[in-house]
């Protein structure tokens, strides 16, 4: 499958970028420390077994990137790192910082709730690269709460309010809204629906016409507490919550305040859907007629669900009926994205 990912995983930072980046992170770190967070620094590689325990490959297999050694280092040329010569990957590139935190506390009974903060490089297999907005490699600072359910819920709310104040103070206006992770469908559909139902994830997005998620608050209930056997002081599985800030996007928003209405091209839309729905990927080429392509009702539901999850617009049955090809559908989605950002 051809992707539209270019040869750069992240925007190259200039001296000015670096200065701004460090200034923003310093402000965020100060906030975390004022909230009693313990600073840690985790590696960029995460053990495959940690992600498997966290069920990341089950929920987001399409985003996962792994590091594999060469089986035979004596092979020369490109064949050295072709799949046939790659060993089984023991390590993955961290898709988020907080997984390290759960592994760090695995098997412990916490005498008191913990607040950790760490900044790390994160990696996700994105379908296309948009500097500063969507990158294969990006940095997040996360504040991770681990403790009894009520303590986590109360402090998550308090921390969220302080994070909001900080972002506004730094010149990052926006608002919170319910969000959904791009779960792998159909396998992780139940998790996607539960996240939406329970509103366990909210994102802070810049205003229209070109909203960009700058931060998120993710409540996990006891999901990670159970899987990593982290107990709170009462002996129950700990609840966790992570507040994550996308530092590259913070910088981008400040240096591009009048962001033009970003509309992905139809090819980018098709590539994103193909990555998110690999079962449908062979049938998602531009000229593929929609009718007769063997999309059943479940595939259609998954396609519409993923369109809304990725692009925040709704495609309804009548839109599908009007589109003759996949390219027509992608054009329809692009138009809806544009209309969403156009003042009424």
């Amino acid at each position, binding site marked *: 499958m051809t992707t539209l990912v270019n040869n750069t995983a992240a925007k190259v930072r200039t001296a000015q970028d670096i200065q701004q980046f460090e200034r923003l992170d310093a402000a965020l770190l100060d906030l975390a420390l004022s909230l009693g967070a313990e600073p840690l620094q985790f590696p960029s590689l995460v053990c495959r077994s940690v992600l498997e325990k966290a069920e990341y490959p089950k929920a987001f297999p399409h985003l996962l990137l792994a590091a594999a050694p060469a089986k035979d280092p004596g092979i020369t040329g490109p064949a050295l790192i072709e799949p046939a010569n790659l060993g089984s990957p023991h390590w993955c590139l961290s898709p988020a910082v907080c997984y390290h935190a759960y592994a760090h506390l695995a098997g412990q009974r916490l005498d008191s709730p913990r607040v950790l903060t760490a900044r790390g490089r994160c990696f996700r297999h994105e379908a296309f690269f948009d500097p500063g907005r969507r990158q294969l490699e990006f940095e997040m600072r996360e504040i991770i709460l681990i403790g009894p359910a009520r303590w986590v819920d109360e402090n998550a709310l308090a921390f969220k309010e302080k994070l909001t104040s900080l972002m506004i103070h730094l010149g990052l206006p926006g608002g919170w809204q319910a969000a959904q992770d791009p779960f792998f469908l159909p396998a992780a559909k139940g998790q996607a629906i*539960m996240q*939406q139902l329970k509103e366990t994830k909210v994102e802070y997005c810049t205003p229209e016409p070109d909203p960009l998620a700058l931060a998120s608050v993710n409540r996990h209930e006891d999901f990670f507490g159970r899987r990593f056997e982290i107990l709170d002081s009462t002996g129950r599985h700990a609840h966790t919550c992570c507040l994550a800030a996308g530092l590259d996007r913070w910088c981008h928003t400040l240096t591009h305040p009048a962001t033009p209405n970003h509309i992905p091209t139809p090819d980018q839309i098709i590539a994103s859907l193909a990555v998110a729905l690999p079962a449908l990927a062979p049938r998602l080429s531009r000229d593929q007629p929609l009718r007769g392509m063997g999309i059943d009702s479940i595939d259609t539901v998954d396609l519409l669900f993923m369109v809304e999850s990725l692009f925040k617009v709704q495609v309804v049955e009548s839109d599908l009926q009007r589109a003759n090809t996949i390219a027509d559908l992608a054009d329809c989605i692009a138009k809806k994205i544009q209309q969403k950002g156009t003042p009424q």
Partner: protein
Amino acid sequence: MSHAPVKPATPKEFQALLLVFINQRLPEIRPPKTLGIQALPDTLLFDSGLVDSMGIVQLILFVEETLGQPIPTRMIVMKHFRTIDAIVEAFWPTHGERQ
């Protein structure tokens, strides 16, 4: 066993079908976390453990097949699925669409 959806004629019939689905059919597909609980129209479906992340997919499919129309994603919110009564209130056609 026939899985052809029975079309309810009234909200009460829809409620009855949901009760059968939650109490009899869903446990066959996905055993509940907590055994011995029988759902009533006002039973909290998620808090009771009767419906989880796998069950919700089946429940949504059941509602769509029974009513013969897809559920818009924007309607998949907790207040519409908290209890059987909430499902009937949200999705029975004569009540209209909710925001």
